[in-house]
């Protein structure tokens, strides 16, 4: 390593040699940086899961525009809207299809007596093109009364049930006082608002939710014609439909709005964002502490080098060399321990906590930047190295 760094820097790797000379301190410093990385990775992982689970329901749908109640913050909350808006929308130029979408939570009691919550979507099975292709393929079966497509990623769902469904079998269960038959499985996964999802026909949905009316869906999904500008249709819809209690958005815009709400306005999003900030702060403090102590411990040596004619860039190079070494050596264990903890979180919570290449790169670059910043602050101590004091 020392030889490699010598070749790389074209000089003795003083920073590396200094750090590794005090092995106990080096290991403690690496552990500190790794811990800070772990904090950031965990917060980002959970925040990513929050984001993924927020937009996951959109993956079930296949539409261009969505009409929602103005009082809703995300796809899964908010009031109902009159189905009449669907017929009004169909009169707008550029719109070729529209369908109501019903959403509600149904309890599902597991064998052990515990209950999980299933976010249920009721759709018009005569219009399968409003669903994602894999789900649309099951709409023929869903047209049968009291059938549903069950989410195999549902938190706590016994593997035996999933095995039956993936083998082409059926599974009947009680929910809301009625019997539902799962005719297949889809993969979505649990989130922060529900343990899993379920898709059924609008008729089955209305049977399961007797207090809901067919004339008051949660949303209306709209498909535009080929080559038609969605923005132009959005503008026409806003000009045509009564304003005040209706939100008119593209599907992408709606998903982005849900994400913004969950990450910046909900306490969960703010808490995880704050956690990332805290992780960065912990890393900054640890690296600064290590580097400033190291500079203080070597002031006489640095003063000697100053006397010999080494300039300020040389000393800055040493401190930044140390900062980068700490960042790299701290990141590696932080990354791998995070991978293990992610797997544990997925196993225990069913949340879609995934390590992405982008996240790993961002955290690594962030670690480098934070370490360099700490190094830059620590270099202020170099001013205390006065060669005249050596005599």
């Amino acid at each position, binding site marked *: 390593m020392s030889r490699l760094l010598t070749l790389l820097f074209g000089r003795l790797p003083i920073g590396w040699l*200094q750090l590794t000379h005090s092995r106990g301190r080096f290991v403690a410093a690496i552990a500190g940086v790794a811990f800070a990385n772990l904090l950031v990775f965990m917060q980002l992982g959970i925040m990513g899961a929050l984001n993924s689970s927020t937009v996951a329901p959109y993956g079930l749908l296949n539409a261009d525009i969505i009409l929602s109640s103005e009082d809703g913050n995300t796809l899964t909350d908010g009031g109902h809207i009159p189905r009449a808006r669907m017929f009004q929308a169909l009169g707008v130029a550029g719109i070729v299809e529209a369908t109501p979408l019903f959403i509600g939570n149904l309890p599902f009691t597991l064998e052990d007596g515990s209950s999980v919550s299933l976010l249920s979507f009721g759709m018009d099975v005569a219009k399968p093109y409003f669903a994602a292709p894999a789900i649309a393929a099951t709409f023929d079966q869903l047209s049968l009364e009291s059938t549903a497509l069950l989410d195999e990623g549902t938190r706590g769902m016994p593997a035996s049930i999933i095995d039956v469904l993936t083998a082409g079998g059926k599974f009947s269960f009680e929910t809301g006082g009625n019997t539902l038959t799962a005719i297949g499985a889809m993969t979505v996964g649990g989130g922060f608002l529900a343990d899993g999802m379920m898709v059924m026909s609008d008729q089955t949905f209305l049977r399961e939710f007797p207090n809901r009316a067919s004339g008051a869906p949660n949303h209306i999904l709209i498909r535009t014609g080929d080559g038609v500008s969605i923005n132009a249709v959005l503008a026409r819809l806003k000009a045509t439909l009564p304003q005040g209690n209706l939100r008119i958005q593209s599907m992408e815009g709606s998903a982005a709005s849900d994400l913004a709400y969950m990450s910046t306005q909900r306490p969960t999003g703010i808490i995880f964002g704050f956690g990332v900030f805290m992780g960065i702060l912990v890393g900054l403090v640890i690296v600064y502490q290590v580097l400033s102590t190291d500079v203080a411990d070597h002031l006489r040596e640095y003063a000697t080098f100053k006397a010999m004619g080494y300039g300020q860039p040389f000393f800055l190079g040493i401190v930044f060399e140390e900062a980068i070494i700490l960042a790299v050596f701290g990141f590696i264990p932080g990354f791998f321990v995070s991978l293990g903890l992610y797997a544990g979180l997925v196993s225990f919570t069913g949340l879609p906590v995934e390590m992405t290449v982008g996240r790993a790169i961002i955290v690594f670059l962030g670690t480098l930047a934070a370490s360099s910043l700490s190094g830059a602050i620590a270099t202020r101590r170099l001013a205390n190295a006065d060669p005249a004091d050596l005599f």
Partner: protein
Amino acid sequence: MGGIENKPPITVKALNHYFGTGDARKQAIFDINLEIDRGSLTILMGPSGSGKTTLLTLIGCLRDVKDGHVTVLGHDLYEANEGVLVGLRRRLGFIFQAHNLHESLTATQNVLMGLQVHGDGNAKKQRAAAHHILDLLGLADRRDYLPGNLSGGQKQRVAVARALVSNPEIVLADEPTAALDKESGHTVVKILKSLGKARGTTTVMVTHDSRILEMADRIITLEDGRIVSDKLQ
């Protein structure tokens, strides 16, 4: 070129130096004037607080010259900027009373620091030069030792090797033999003398070591910041 070579490498004219400001201002050097010849070995003597170390640090470009003139290797240090001072320091060799070796570098690596300050160089040649001077100082079997594993005298000899390895034009030494036994001290001064003869290296040394006084070309004694005696030998 010949003209420059004939000029004394160190000239001090009307030099005064003060520490502190305001009421706490204290004068440490009073109107010093001297010229030191190329290749000579000059010893500065005097009691503690006589100003010899202050004079050494002013000549060594380690303190700012603010009153009077110190000319080192043709450069007047009066109000010289940091770039000039750093450039000049690279042409000097410092030997401190404390060895000030870098604890995480081996003896060879510490000596290499004296070479790498000059920028790019052939790594193999640099290593060979470092080994050569360590061998000359009797440290052939201690090349790869960390300072923590060397005795006090061995550390000081590594520090001497670090100062001399780059063939400095001037060597400034503060009690270089204090931590050495008689033989090692003698060897160090002999090397300094031979460098003076062979390469014209000028040495200015602060010492109380009576064992080496006889080897000096000139002995200057200071008291209370003034030169009270200046003897050629």
